[in-house]
């Protein structure tokens, strides 16, 4: 019996038992779809993380007060308040003689705030920083301008709004926020009235960064934010932008040296600050996501094997059920090879069909997941690697054929006389 006829015969047999054929391949469908979805989500998460690096600029160093293990969490996470980092440290780092490759340096504090304009009140986050901030983190303005040097250092009563804040405060009135006076009150301060600030600019929408809406923020001058709103005399973070990537490590060394001198620290283990390299942090994150998706892919691959065992099971039942048919086929001239091929093809066609349906479902689910993530504001890429499709399909067909061989050989070895008498 030739190949084409075998395939036609098998397809007709499978179509005659649609329900069972579908149930047989369900395990394979789920396994294949699982592999593809997990690999696509893993790739999407990585592209998200990498996209955020480019957004920040990967040449960014972040200095935080308090010593912490290089790859561990910052000290603040444990509720420890370290007050050793100051705006003067930031100023010292701007000295080109000391830190030649620092292109821009800014200090910042951050806190919760209630912002009021007329009868509109919103809760948001304020960032107290200086006029270097836009350059350091690649910020651009929608309208107006950021603080100039005088405003930033002179503690002027001015504010720049994130686009979400601007929309929530001024969206209903349709008024231009520039020139309006808003009142800001620290969330930790139960006091009265709040500080009046004149709006001088609105930041262009930035989207989310590490799962935080970057547009739901209001920017105020550093001293105002630190001393008037938070009541502190230190800064929480200093960012240093390195002019180009090859100088990142030398700049880390320069920064460490300058701060150690200023803080009179002799031994590295006494350092009261931590310099983090954003690119390193991101590469750690990518390593974690890759490891996680590899692990999940392995789990999905196990479900493919379980699906293969399902096929083995059903094929054995099918062979038993069709014993008389096999006897008849042999009686009218089917060779052992013809019977074996028929059942092998049945398993092969079932698994490839399951593989294809699984690929389709996997791609669709990944696609809708990416749409959902984008709707939520994340820069999520829809990535289906050809490798994941080939892997999933290959493994499913391989398991199907492997688990199909035993029932097929069993069928081909049936004695036709006994098979015909089988009840």
């Amino acid at each position, binding site marked *: *019996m030739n190949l084409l*006829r075998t395939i036609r*015969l098998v397809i007709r047999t499978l179509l*005659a*038992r649609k329900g069972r054929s579908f149930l047989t391949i369900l395990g394979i469908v789920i396994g294949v779809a699982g592999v593809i979805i997990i690999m696509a989500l893993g790739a999407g998460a990585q592209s998200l993380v990498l996209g955020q690096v480019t957004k920040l600029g990967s040449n960014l160093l972040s200095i935080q007060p308090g010593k912490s293990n290089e790859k561990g969490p910052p000290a603040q996470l444990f509720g420890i308040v370290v007050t050793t980092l100051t705006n003067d440290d930031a100023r010292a780092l701007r000295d080109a003689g000391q830190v030649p490759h620092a292109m821009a340096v800014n200090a910042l504090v951050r806190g919760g705030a209630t912002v009021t304009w007329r009868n509109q009140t919103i809760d948001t986050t304020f960032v107290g920083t200086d006029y270097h901030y836009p350059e350091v983190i690649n910020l651009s303005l929608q309208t107006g301008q950021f603080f100039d040097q005088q405003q930033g250092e002179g503690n002027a009563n001015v504010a720049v709004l994130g686009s979400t804040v601007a929309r929530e405060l001024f969206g209903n009135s349709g008024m231009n926020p520039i020139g309006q006076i808003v009142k800001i009150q620290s969330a930790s301060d139960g006091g009265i009235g709040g500080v009046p600030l004149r709006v001088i600019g609105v930041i262009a929408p930035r989207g989310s960064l590490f799962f935080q809406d970057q547009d739901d923020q209001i920017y105020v001058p550093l001293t105002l934010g630190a001393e008037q709103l938070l009541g502190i005399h230190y800064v929480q973070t200093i960012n240093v932008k390195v002019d180009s990537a090859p100088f990142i490590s030398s700049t880390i060394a320069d920064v460490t040296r300058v701060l150690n001198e200023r803080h009179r620290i002799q031994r590295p283990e006494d350092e009261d600050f931590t310099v983090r390299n954003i690119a390193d942090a991101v590469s750690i994150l990518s390593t974690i996501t890759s490891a996680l998706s590899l692990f999940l892919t392995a789990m999905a691959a196990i479900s493919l094997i379980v699906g293969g065992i399902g096929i083995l099971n059903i094929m054995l039942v099918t062979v038993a059920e069709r014993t*008389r*048919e096999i*006897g*008849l*086929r*042999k*009686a*009218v*001239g*089917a*060779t*052992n*090879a*013809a019977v074996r091929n028929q059942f092998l093809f049945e398993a092969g066609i079932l698994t490839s069909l399951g593989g294809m349906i699984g690929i389709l479902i996997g791609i669709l689910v990944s696609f809708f997941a990416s749409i959902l993530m984008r709707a939520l504001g994340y820069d999520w890429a829809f990535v289906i690697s050809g490798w994941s499709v080939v892997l999933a399909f290959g493994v499913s067909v391989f398991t199907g054929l492997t688990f199909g061989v035993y029932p097929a050989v069993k069928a081909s070895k049936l004695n*036709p*006389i006994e098979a*015909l008498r089988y009840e």
Partner: protein
Amino acid sequence: MALIEVENLKKDYLNEDVVTPVLRDVTFSIDHGEFVAIMGPSGSGKSTLMHILSFLDRPTAGIYRFEGKDTKEFSDDFLAKLRNERVGFVFQSFNLLARTSVLDNVKLPLLYGKKKDQDAIARRALESVGLSHRLGFFTNQISGGEKQRVAIARALVCDPAVIFADEPTGNLDSKSGNTVMHILQQLNDAGHTIILVTHETDTARHAKRILRIKDGRVIADEQVVQRTLAHPERELEK
């Protein structure tokens, strides 16, 4: 040259070291165009004999020559080819494929051959058993008599040298059985060799020659003097 020649044929079944002889010493020959009924009580070995003659089984000892050639050295695949091209089967329980059309059932042996125009060949076979009007029916939609006629068409479709019919009327009422015997007689008249296995004397008397078997030996080989001729059913004319 005879179509089938067997000499001192023996067949033993081995079951857990116990040897059960089924055919002890069988010798006969059948020519082209004969209509032979092999008769005997259950356990006489008639079915085993038919399985050997139709290449479904091999003898333990003795010689079986088919169309002049000793079958002893034939490979399994060659026996499959012989079953496909040189012999046709009609079973007591029809053995049609369920969920499959009448036409596809008849085409089944052609699947394992090399003939072209399978549809036309299968249609002709169905026409010769009077079932042209049932081509697209599924096998669960037709009567028992019609099922056996489909089985005969399937046996015919490869134009075999000999048709083996194993109790073909055993599961049928007398009217349908009569139709089936009529068709077999017509096929014989048209030149086909037919070997019928039965334990009913009435059925056997449709043949031209009766081989009686008992305890694995041929005990009588007789020409039928007063042969029963089955009459065509009206069903067939429809």
